[in-house]
Every structure is written in C-alpha cells, then in structure tokens.
C-alpha cells in the first residue's frame, strides 16, 4: 500500500469531502494561499477557490461563530484552528453555542461542523503553543472528539467528522504532520466509537491516545524483549468512547496503563481509568495507572520540556512495576 504523510492524508480527506458535498467549506487564518503554517491545506484553494477556502482575520471567536451560524442553516464548515491552544478563545461559541443547540432546540436544530486543530508538546513552542486540550472539550456534552494517531486515522476520522451532523473537534498531533503511514487509495471511513487494537497482548493493556499511541507501541516493544506481553489499544475517538473494547482488554490482561498527552489531573486518563475501575474491578490484578503530561504549563527550555511528557521508557518502567506487584506511588 502507498504511504503518505498525515498532512497529505488530511488534505485528501478535505478535498474528497469538498468534491462530494459542495456545502463543505474551510474557514480559518492563512488557510488559502499559505495553506496554513503547517502547509496542511496546500493546493485546496487552487481547486476550490477562495469562496470555499476562506482566509479570515485573526478573529477566532468571530469565525467560530460564523461557522456555527452557517452550520445551523445548511452548510458544513470545517474550522481551521491553527493551534489547539486557541480553543480558549473560541470556547463560548463552541461550548455554549455549538455544543448545546441541538439539545436546547429539542432536536430541531443541527450544528454539523468540524473544528480541526492540534495538540502536542516538545516542539519548543512554550506554554501557549504546546497544550493538549482535548479533555476540555470532551467534558462538554454535545461535542464529539476525535484523536487520530496516524495518517490512516487522520483521513478516515476526518471524513467521518465532516459527514457527522454534530459538532466534532478533531485534534491532530503537530509532531506527526510529516510522519508517513500506509493509506489506501480507495475511499474509506473510520466510524466513531470504535477502538483499534494495534497489538495483541496478554499481560498488560496500554491504552494510548493520539501522540501517545506511538509511545505505547514503543513501550510494548521494550516490554516484549523482557518477556512481557503488552496489548496496545487506541480509542481513536474519546467521545464517543469504545468502552466495550477497553473493558474487554482490561478483563483479559488484568493490568492497564492509560497514556495521554493532556495534563494528568482531571483528564482523559482519569476518565478511562475510572470506567475500567467501575466495570472491570474484579478482573484487575493491579490499580489502573494514569500517565499524562505533567501538571505544569509547558516550559520552553528543552531541558525541562522533555520531562513533562510520558516516554516509552517511563511507560515500560510503570508496566514492570505493575507486573511485579510493586505498589505504585499515586503521585
């Protein structure tokens, strides 16, 4: 199968959906000629024109609001939010408006829009350009949240997001834009709420999201060399969450580590650990461990930044502790 970058996969998904449905349009900063700072959208304005690939002023709450209104009245906007950190600027339009309109209208109004944004640290971009804020939107009922972990997922999930009749926030990992993965030529969709088991194992389950899927896979390799068989699962969407797949694996292996790049406290890892605890408790041989980004703003200095994010070595070390029955310091 051909291999393409995550960036190209996103670009293809948008182009295919825009060809299929003329109500789909892109709106955001420097999306047209510049094709975004990450060059993800290069070529789209040439095919679809400036009417459907719309450059905006630096006015995030404004263009997010426009997207909500357009979505409610028959269009399918794909909002390009240059950095996930800018979610804080659009929160009212996204969380008070888009997320609640279908419910508040008793099911009469729909808001079929997508916010494409990103997450991930270790790019030396400091505290306001490095956050992984997906937990924040996952907390709000009415928003679906997708976390692609490779080019393949990025394309399939984005196409599904665009066809979904609800507001969807999709987070790409900035560090992965140039990573290649096999992506079929022929069309495919990835349904929401279906986890992918990326590696079968029997001793321990590593649940990883987005940027942390590769970390879990590398950790599984380290562990395999030591005779520990780790299963690796990627939920792919956290709202909806494929709880059944996660529980099935937890029951099978009896030990689980959840790894996510959002801050560890009050985050995705705690949510998933909580559900496993509630529903698979009697199958567990060890407490479910959470591994998130350190609970500090992301520091600029490489000497500090690198220690704020879970690494394969750290995941493997925790897995060993769970295997040996060593008590884990919850801090």
């Amino acid at each position, binding site marked *: 199968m051909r291999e393409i970058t995550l960036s190209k996969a996103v670009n293809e998904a948008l182009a295919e959906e825009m060809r299929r449905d003329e109500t789909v349009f892109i709106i955001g900063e420097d999306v047209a000629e*510049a094709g975004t700072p990450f060059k993800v959208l290069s070529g789209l304005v040439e095919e679809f024109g400036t009417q459907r690939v719309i*450059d*905006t002023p630096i006015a995030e709450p404004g263009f997010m609001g426009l997207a909500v209104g357009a979505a409610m009245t028959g269009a399918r906007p794909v909002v390009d939010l240059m950095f996930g950190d800018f979610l804080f600027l659009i929160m009212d339009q996204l969380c008070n408006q888009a997320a609640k309109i279908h419910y508040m209208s008793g099911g009469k109004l729909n808001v079929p829009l997508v916010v494409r944004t990103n997450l991930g640290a270790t790019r*030396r971009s400091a*505290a*306001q350009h490095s956050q992984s804020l997906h937990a924040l939107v996952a907390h709000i009922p009415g928003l679906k949240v997708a976390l692609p972990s490779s080019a393949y997922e990025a394309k399939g999930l984005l196409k599904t997001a665009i066809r979904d009749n609800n507001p969807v926030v999709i987070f790409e990992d900035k560090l992965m834009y140039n990573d290649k993965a096999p992506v079929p030529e022929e069309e495919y969709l990835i349904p929401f709420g279906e986890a992918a088991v990326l590696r079968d194992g029997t001793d321990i389950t590593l649940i990883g999201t987005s940027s942390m899927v590769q970390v879990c896979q590398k950790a599984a390799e380290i562990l395999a060399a030591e005779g520990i068989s780790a299963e690796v699962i990627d939920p792919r969407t956290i709202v909806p969450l494929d709880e059944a797949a996660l529980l099935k694996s937890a029951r099978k292996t009896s030990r689980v580590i959840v790894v996510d790049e959002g801050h560890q406290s009050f985050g995705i890892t705690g949510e998933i650990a909580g559900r496993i605890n509630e529903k698979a408790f009697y199958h567990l041989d060890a407490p479910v461990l959470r591994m998130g980004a350190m609970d500090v703003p992301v520091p600029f200095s490489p000497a500090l930044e690198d220690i704020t994010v879970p690494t394969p070595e750290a995941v493997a070390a925790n897995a060993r502790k769970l295997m040996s029955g060593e008590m884990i310091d919850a801090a």
Partner: protein
Amino acid sequence: MADSKTNTEAYLRMYRQMVRIRTFEDNANQLYLSAKMPGLTHMYSGEEAVAVGICEALTDNDRITSTHRGHGHCVAKGAEFQQMFCELLGKEEGYCRGKGGSMHIADQSHGNLGANAIVGGSMGIATGAALRAKMQGADDVTVCFFGDGATAQGLLYEVMNMAALWKLPVIYACENNGYSEYTKTDEIAAGKITARAEAFGIEAFEVDGQDVLAVNDLATKLVARARKGEGPFFVELKTYRYHGHHVGDINREYYRSKEEEQDWKANRDPIIRFRSWLVEQGVASEDEIEAMNAEVKADAAAAVDYAIAAKYPEAHEVDMHVFTDIEHVLA
C-alpha cells in the same frame, strides 16, 4: 529621560538602542540557522524605530506589554543581551529562567510585562495595568504594543471602550508592518484602523514608524498627556518587517515580493536614515558611529558565547513557579 530628545546624549542613545535591536536579531537568526536555538522566533528587524522611539519616552516605572515579535520592545525597554540570549536558548540565567523563551520574555525590572504568544493577548493586561495606575493615583503610563493583524481581535474593542470611558493612562501602539503572517493587512482589516479608536472618542494618530525622531516626538507628548489623565491614545505606526513572519519563513515570494523588501531596506531603513541625520547634524562622525556599531557587535557576540556555554535549568525546576506559595507543586 522622558523629555523630548533634543540633546546629543539622547540621540546617540536612541541610535545605539536601534543598533542593539538589529544586532540582537542578526545573532538570534544566526542561532536559529545554525540549529543552536530551540524552536522558532519572530524578528523585529526593520521596526526598530517604533520600539525605541516609544520606549525612550518612558521611564522604568512605565509599563509595556509586548508581542510574539517582542525582542525589540524588550531591548528598547532596557533589557540586557546576556539574559535575553540565555532565555532564547532556554538557559537558567535567562530572564524567565528558560521557562518562557523568545515568545514570553518578560523583564519585570524595566516594566516589561511580557511578550505574548496569543495575538492580542496583552490588550487586557495593558489596560488593566493602566486601570491600577488610575485607581492607586500612580502616574505611570502603559504602552500596549500589538500588530496590525491583532486589530482583528475583539478584545481590543472591549478594552478600548473601557479605557475611553474611564480615561485610563494607556497608549495603544499598533505596529502596522503591512502583514499579518502571510496575508496583506488590507485583506484582513476593513476601513481605517485609526477610525476604530476614534469611534470610542480616543484620539488617534498615524506616524512614520521608520522615523525614530517623529515617533519619539509624538510618544513624548502623548505620554506626558496620559500622565495628566488625558488618555487613552491610539497610535498607528507604519513600519515593515525585514525577515519572514518567523525565522523559518524563507520562501515568501508567494505573498511578498523581493522588490518590495528591497525597497524598504534600501530606502526607508530606520537606522540608515537616523545615522545620516546624525552625521549631517554633526551629532556624531562616521567614525564615532562605526565605533559604536562595533562595540554593540562585540557585546552581542560575547553575550551569545556566554549564553551558549550557560547551563540549562535543573530538572527539579520543572514544577516550580506554578503557584507563588507552593515551591514544588508535584512534590
């Protein structure tokens, strides 16, 4: 220091400060190109007369808020090369102990409340500093630097309204360098920028941002008036950035021609212009100016060497400074 610049010493200081900014940026760019600097940075080169003309009208007690393109403001407000380069390289002796980096340099000792990686993010901060001055009967003035692109942020209009209602001692300094990232200003700004301030009854001015004397003259008058409670004011400074949007923006002919860049550099350079004025007026000889340039260059080279050799923060600093009253938040 806050009087109009009519003496030799002040002229030479302004010249020197402009050269210091240009030299700082040349070195920062070199650090990026030689892969010695983590991350990216936004160069202030070409805009020196704006920061220097304004900051020379301020005392250490007056505050500024800065932007992602903030090295110029930082130098002009009195910062030292050594601590600035250390910050750019993420070293412990940097102004922010390596935690902030280029986009977050703050220099409390000279009243620089900080650069900001959120476009428009400092408009509330600047206006709040002015509110405090008024409430407490202090006579300091705050200058809020921001770009033409930032005028698209709604926050500006919320805070200008309050500043005008309450006559706050704040000066909004819009550095119009013709571009907002990869887009020309006239494609993202409707109407006249100064008219927006005027709509709130704020006196607004336009000035040639390549003419340090014109900038300083206007700034001196407005600062004096703001101190007396006659503020707020709005100034649009017409200027130009010589480099790309950031150091990595090398191939930019698709949005800005080489001829245009050449024209600004050759015919409107703020340093060349002021230098010939100084010589014409007999304030300094060519030789004296060359000697000053050489001295600044040597200072910068020494500071760069120092910063490269300086140490990174210790790992245990990572969870310090999250809160004022908890030394290590994760201990």
